[in-house]
C-alpha cells in the first residue's frame, strides 16, 4: 500500500487524538490573538446598550451542561451589562436542565459585579425557573405570567417579589434576550413575543445554529445574534470585561486550523492519487 493510500485510510482515532491535542494545547498554554468582532455581535451589543436604563428585560436562559461553556460566558456578560444599567431582569427557561445553568450564570455575573451595582434577588432580578409547555408555555407567559408561574426558581411566591409587583405580561418589558443554546427555540420567541407584542429581541445560539437564524437578523426580527464561544468572547471584549470565552475562542481557532489542514491534505492527496492513476 502506498504512503498516500495509508494516509487516506488512516484510523480515525488518530485524527481524534490529534484533535484532542490541538484543542487541549491552547487551554494549557493560553495564547490570546486579536479577535475580529462580527457584525451580528456588534448589533446585539448595541441593542443591549440602547435599552433605556432601569427597563424591564425578559431573558430566556437555554444553556444546558453541554452549551454552558460556550454560551454561558455570553449570558453572564449580558447579565453583567444589563445590571450595570440598572435594568430589572426576569429569567425563565423552557427546558428543565437550563433552569439550573441559568442560575449558575446569574451567580457568575453577580460575583463579577462591583459592590456599587444593585443586584438583589427579587428586586433587581427574578428567576422564574423552568416553564413547561415549550412554545405554548411561552405564549401563556407572554399573555399572563401569573397564570403559568406562581413561584420563582427558589419557591418564593411571585406576589412576595417586589420587582414583580408591576409586571405580568410581555407588554411590560422593553426588550427580550433569547439565550437559546442548542434548544432551537429562538423562533418561539420571534413567533410569540416579537410578532404579537412587537417586543424587540436579540438572540444567542450555538455556532451550528447561526446560519439558521441569520435570516431573522437580516429581516430585523432579531436585533442581533451572538453565536457560540466566539459570540461570547466578542461580548466580553465589547463590554471590556475579559472572561473565560476569550481563551476558549483561541482553542476553537486552533481546532478549526487543524480541521482545515486535514481537509486540504485529504483533497491534495486524493488528487495526487488520481493523477497517478491509483484507485
Amino acid at each position, binding site marked *: 500500500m502506498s504512503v498516500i493510500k495509508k494516509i487516506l485510510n488512516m484510523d480515525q482515532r488518530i485524527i481524534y487524538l490529534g484533535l484532542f491535542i490541538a484543542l487541549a494545547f491552547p487551554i494549557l498554554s493560553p495564547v490570546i490573538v486579536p479577535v475580529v468582532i462580527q457584525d451580528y455581535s456588534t448589533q446585539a451589543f448595541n441593542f443591549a446598550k440602547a435599552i433605556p436604563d432601569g427597563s424591564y428585560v425578559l431573558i430566556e436562559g437555554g444553556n444546558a451542561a453541554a452549551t454552558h461553556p460556550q454560551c454561558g460566558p455570553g449570558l453572564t456578560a449580558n447579565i453583567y451589562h444589563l445590571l450595570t444599567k440598572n435594568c430589572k431582569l426576569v429569567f425563565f427557561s423552557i427546558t428543565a436542565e437550563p433552569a439550573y445553568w441559568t442560575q449558575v450564570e446569574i451567580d457568575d455575573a453577580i460575583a463579577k459585579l462591583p459592590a456599587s451595582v444593585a443586584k438583589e434577588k427579587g428586586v433587581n432580578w427574578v428567576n422564574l425557573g423552568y416553564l413547561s409547555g415549550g412554545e405554548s408555555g411561552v405564549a401563556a407567559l407572554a399573555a399572563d405570567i401569573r397564570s403559568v408561574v406562581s413561584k420563582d426558581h427558589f419557591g418564593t411566591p411571585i406576589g412576595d417579589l417586589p420587582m414583580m409587583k408591576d409586571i405580568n405580561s410581555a407588554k411590560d418589558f422593553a426588550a427580550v434576550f433569547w439565550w437559546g443554546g442548542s434548544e432551537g427555540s429562538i423562533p418561539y420567541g420571534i*413567533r410569540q413575543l416579537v410578532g404579537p407584542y412587537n417586543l424587540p429581541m436579540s438572540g444567542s445560539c450555538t455556532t*451550528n445554529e*447561526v446560519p439558521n437564524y441569520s435570516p431573522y437578523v437580516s429581516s430585523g426580527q432579531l436585533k442581533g445574534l451572538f453565536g457560540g*464561544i466566539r459570540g461570547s468572547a466578542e461580548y466580553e471584549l465589547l463590554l471590556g470585561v475579559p472572561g473565560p470565552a476569550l481563551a476558549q475562542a483561541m482553542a476553537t481557532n486552533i481546532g478549526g486550523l487543524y480541521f482545515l489542514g486535514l481537509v486540504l491534505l485529504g483533497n491534495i492527496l486524493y488528487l495526487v492519487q488520481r493523477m497517478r492513476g491509483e484507485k
Partner: protein
Amino acid sequence: MMDMVWLGLVVGSFVSIGAYTVLIGDNPVSKVTEHLYTGILAGYTLAINWDFIMKNAVGKVQGGQFDFILPIILSLMLFARLKPEWIWISRYPVALTVGVGMGLAMRASVLSDFVGQIQGTLLPINSINNIVMIVGTITATAYFLFTRENKGPYKYVNQTGLLFLLVAFGVTYGSTASFRFELVIGRLVDMLRPDVALYTYGFLALVAIILIYGYTTKKIPWYKSR
C-alpha cells in the same frame, strides 16, 4: 466541608473521560458513563417537572383555583398509555396538546416566518450585500420549482440557486464542526483546571489500565466475545 463545585468537576472529569472512550470502541467504561448520564438526566428532569406541577398546578388547586383540576386530569390521562386497552384515553390530551401547539405556532408563523422573511428580502439594490441577498433568495427558491423543465435561461437560474445552496450547506457544515469543537473545549477547560488536572490525568491512566487489562486477560465478561 468539601467544595461541592470542585467535587462536581472531578466527577465530571471522570465521566467525560469514560464517555470519550467510546472513540476506541464500545466498552464497559463508556457504558457505565452512558447509563449514569441517562439516569441522572432522567431523574433531574423528573424532579424539575414534578416541582413545576406541584408549584403551578397542585399548589393552585390547593389555593382555591379549581380550574387547574382539568389540566391535572388531562395529565393523568396520559398515563393510560401504560395499558394497551386504555391507550384511547391518552389520545385526548395528546390531541389537545398538539392542537394548541399547532394553532399557536401557525398563528404567528405566517407573520414571522413568511411575511417577515419576504419583507426582509425586499431590499434596495444599493450594495453588494443586498444584491447577493436578493439574487440568493430568488435563485435558491427557484431551485425547488420542480414543475419547470431545467433548460434555456431557467437552467442558469437553477444552477445559480444550487451554488447558493451549496455555499449555505458549506457554512452549516463548518459551523457544525466548530460547534463540536466547542463542546470538547468546554469539557477540557473544566478537566484541565489546575485543581482538577491531576485527577483528570489519574482517571485517564485508570481507564487505560481497565481497558488494557480487560482486553488482554478477558477477565471482564464484556471482553470475552471480543
